[in-house]
């Protein structure tokens, strides 16, 4: 385990978020390389546990970076890894949001929306597909996933009940 340099950690995460097009999972391999392979701050096992925990916690999945920082150096560490997340959002996104509100009918905006909507939908479906195959070990898991889809599309129930039922099914060893 190396001595931790918080400012280097901050700068590295800042750089990563600016190239993180397509979401937080695209920079996961690089964060793993930095924290586990190059600097030996966490073991690969610890890294996987932190990631899983952030996936099931309420909130954005990107919060795994907060947990990594917290694990390494408490509140200061959490700030060093979380604040960079806000930088692209508060600069580039605000600028694009501003232009989009100002010129809602600009040809470039329309072209982007029209062209990328099907791609975005396809990519989101692909994420769901990959996750479905990763979390489900046998037909019972797939059945629960499919049942969830059918219920969400047909019933106006609060999905927190479905999540609670999933937790129960898991505890009973059905998944």
């Amino acid at each position, binding site marked *: 385990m190396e001595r931790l340099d918080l400012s280097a950690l901050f700068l590295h995460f800042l750089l990563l978020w600016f190239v993180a097009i397509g979401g937080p999972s695209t920079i996961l391999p690089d964060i793993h390389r930095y924290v586990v392979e190059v600097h030996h701050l966490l073991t690969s096992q610890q890294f996987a546990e932190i990631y899983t925990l952030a996936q099931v916690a309420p909130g954005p999945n990107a919060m795994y970076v907060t947990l990594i920082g917290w694990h390494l150096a408490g509140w200061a560490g959490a700030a060093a890894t979380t604040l960079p997340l806000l930088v692209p959002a508060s600069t580039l996104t605000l600028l694009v949001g501003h232009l989009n509100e100002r010129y809602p009918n600009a040809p470039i905006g329309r072209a982007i929306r029209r062209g990328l*909507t099907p791609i975005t939908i396809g990519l*989101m479906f692909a994420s769901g597909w990959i996750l479905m195959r990763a979390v489900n070990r046998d037909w019972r898991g797939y059945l629960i996933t499919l049942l969830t889809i059918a219920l969400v599309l047909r019933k106006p129930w609060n*999905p*927190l009940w479905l999540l609670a039922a999933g937790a129960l099914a898991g505890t009973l060893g059905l998944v």
Partner: protein
Amino acid sequence: MEQTNSHRPQVSAFALFLTFSRITLSGFGGLMFWARRGLVERQRWLTEQEFMDLLVLGQLLPGPNVLNLTVMVGYRFGGWTGAAAAVAGFLGCPCLVVIGMGVLYQQYGALPHVQQALAGMSTVAVGLLLATVIKLATVLPRHWRPWLFGVLAFVGVGVLR
């Protein structure tokens, strides 16, 4: 279908903060589902089409796509203050919750029941994500070309990697 300014609801910064806190704190295992439910179905601040448009931009920009969506929705309804309020709601509580869960996990994470419950929740969470995508796909025009691109993107990334 382009955005129109005529029937845009009045939304306060506090309402933005509360709504995004609620979305984010419900968001076990993925936020897409809860963002769409909160903004399109519950509050009716956005139409299905407007939600999709902002999500496409959010996907294009660096960083988490739902965070980008949060910034743009906040800005649309409340300018700079609205954007700041929405982001504070979106990231504030989860930051504390995830750290709290980290502390709990160090104590109890090895218990088999906890692992099993988490596995069951992940299975349901995936279903929520897929159902959201199916609902959003209804904004695509009834024409084969957009569907072809969607399917190609899915096969390229989801099946062939």
